[in-house]
């Protein structure tokens, strides 16, 4: 399927696969992002993947729109079809202790489940990182069991602690740094997903497959102490 190429203001472009399903779009976006990034021409600053699209940033002092559009379109024609993007498989420990899981009961009540069911369902699925965004290192994860789909909170919290694992609609995600947020918080990970002093600063990449491993409060503290 040929994606659309649209201007985003005067210094970026959006390449979108809006009609593809989630998995197909993700593969297309991963391949295209990698290919465009490796074949950047002078004036193209960066390429970043999103959900059904990717964004190309360019210097409008160096490149005119038509040149950018042509470069993108030519490059997309030569994306190697067989390219397999290496993905990491990661286990992320999560403590579902009530002290951290501020909305666990609310999520359980919304679906006539008990909190144990929610934890079991949440930690028994494979999730794919669709995109990193919202804040530095925040992964949007696809694969949330439909029994757990829960609308965002009516009013967002002003401060969500770093490491909070949360559900927003059909997605789950991890607040990588403390920030305001409206998703339902069901646990906390002791893993630091984003650290500007680390190289690379972000633990996860688009396409990575992760699984949540339930840990208790003691294990959470031990993990924190070790790292």
């Amino acid at each position, binding site marked *: 399927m040929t994606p659309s190429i*649209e*201007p*985003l*203001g*005067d*210094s*970026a472009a*959006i390449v*979108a696969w809006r009609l593809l399903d989630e998995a197909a779009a993700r593969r297309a976006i991963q391949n295209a*992002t990698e290919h465009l990034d490796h074949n950047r021409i002078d004036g193209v*600053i*960066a*390429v*970043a*993947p*999103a*959900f*059904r*699209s*990717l*964004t190309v*940033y360019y210097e*409008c*002092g160096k490149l*005119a*729109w038509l040149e950018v559009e042509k470069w993108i379109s030519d490059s997309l024609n030569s994306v190697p079809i067989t390219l397999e993007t290496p993905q990491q498989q990661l286990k992320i420990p999560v403590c579902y202790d009530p002290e951290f899981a501020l909305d666990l009961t609310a999520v359980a009540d919304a679906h006539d489940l008990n909190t144990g069911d929610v934890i079991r369902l949440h930690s028994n699925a494979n999730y794919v990182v669709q*995109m*990193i*965004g*919202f*804040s*530095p*290192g*925040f992964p*949007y994860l696809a694969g949330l069991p439909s029994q757990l789909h829960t609308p965002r909170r009516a009013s967002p919290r002003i401060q969500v602690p770093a490491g909070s694992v949360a559900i927003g609609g059909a997605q789950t995600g991890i607040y*990588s*740094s403390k*920030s305001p947020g409206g998703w339902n918080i069901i646990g906390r990970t002791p893993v630091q997903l*984003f650290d*500007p*002093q680390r190289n*690379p*600063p*972000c633990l996860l990449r*688009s396409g990575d497959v992760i699984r949540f491993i339930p840990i208790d409060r003691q294990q959470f503290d031990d993990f924190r102490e070790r790292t």
Partner: protein
Amino acid sequence: MNRVHILRSGLCSTVQDRGRAGFRHIGVPLGGALDSMAHDLANRLAGNPVDAATIEMTLTGDEIEFTHDTLIAITGADMAPTLHDSSDLPQPVAQHCPRLIPAGSRVRFQAARRGCRSYLAIAGGVDVPVVMGSRSTVLRAAFGGHGGRMLTAADDLAIGTPSEAGRQTLERLLAKRSGTGRQVHPHWFVRPIDLPNPDIATLRIVPGAHMTCLCSSGLERPSDAAFRVSSQSDRMGYRLIDQRLELEHREEMLSEGVIPGTIQLPPDGNPILLMADCAPTGGYPRIGHVISADLGIAAQLRPGQLVRFAMVTLDQAQSVFRQQRLMLTKALSMAGLMIHG
């Protein structure tokens, strides 16, 4: 090593350079000086490379003490800076030219009389650690700059080594001072970059993907109305109030890329103009984008200020930007020449 001390802090003063362009794929904002042209110009006047770190002050500036004879340059908003030393009455500090600040004296910035953001470049640049390729402060994620936060009283900032041009200019101004006793800036300045019209500012925009969805019963184009910049405005974005825009229909959309200058329309109808610290993606409809050439004007808008939009084509936007860069390059090289000459 040269250092400066913050004696009193302004409303929101941060260390900024040209930002982090290559980390948006992991959710890190572009960041950097909101008025990048004023930032570049201040640096060049102080003999610095354009990507040296400056201090960006917002609405009200700081009071800063200099421990050594130091070359500085100030651009952007007019915060009526004055020089204070032990003896004389305060003297105004000229903007848009290199300026010698004698050891032991203080520069006091006040409330901005025009514009919103003032840039202080110090020869050698503010020497905070480079984090992910930049010295810019990311306030929301609390990293970069000086401890990832705004400057506060009693902060102490290290200053890097001035360039050869910066050093020579400093020497020349020092020699001038010992000759006349008072004169501590050259007899020239570069033409200031335009500040917004205080009555009503105009920002040029190109259409956004969802502009055609705007409700035909109301304002069909963002250029039909004047908006007021709300007090809920910061380095991430400005809320625009007094007028509401409506969409014909609103469908749930997945987050897509946004850039500084993007005008988003949340359900309440009050547009949000995104600025340099915006997240790299957003889930609200995009009705337009302020053109790159006018982001400096946007950076100088004050809360309460009226602003309207004027539509241009993508071609026009890009050619205006190239012309503006050409002018700036000329001004920068002129400043460089004057510094060297």
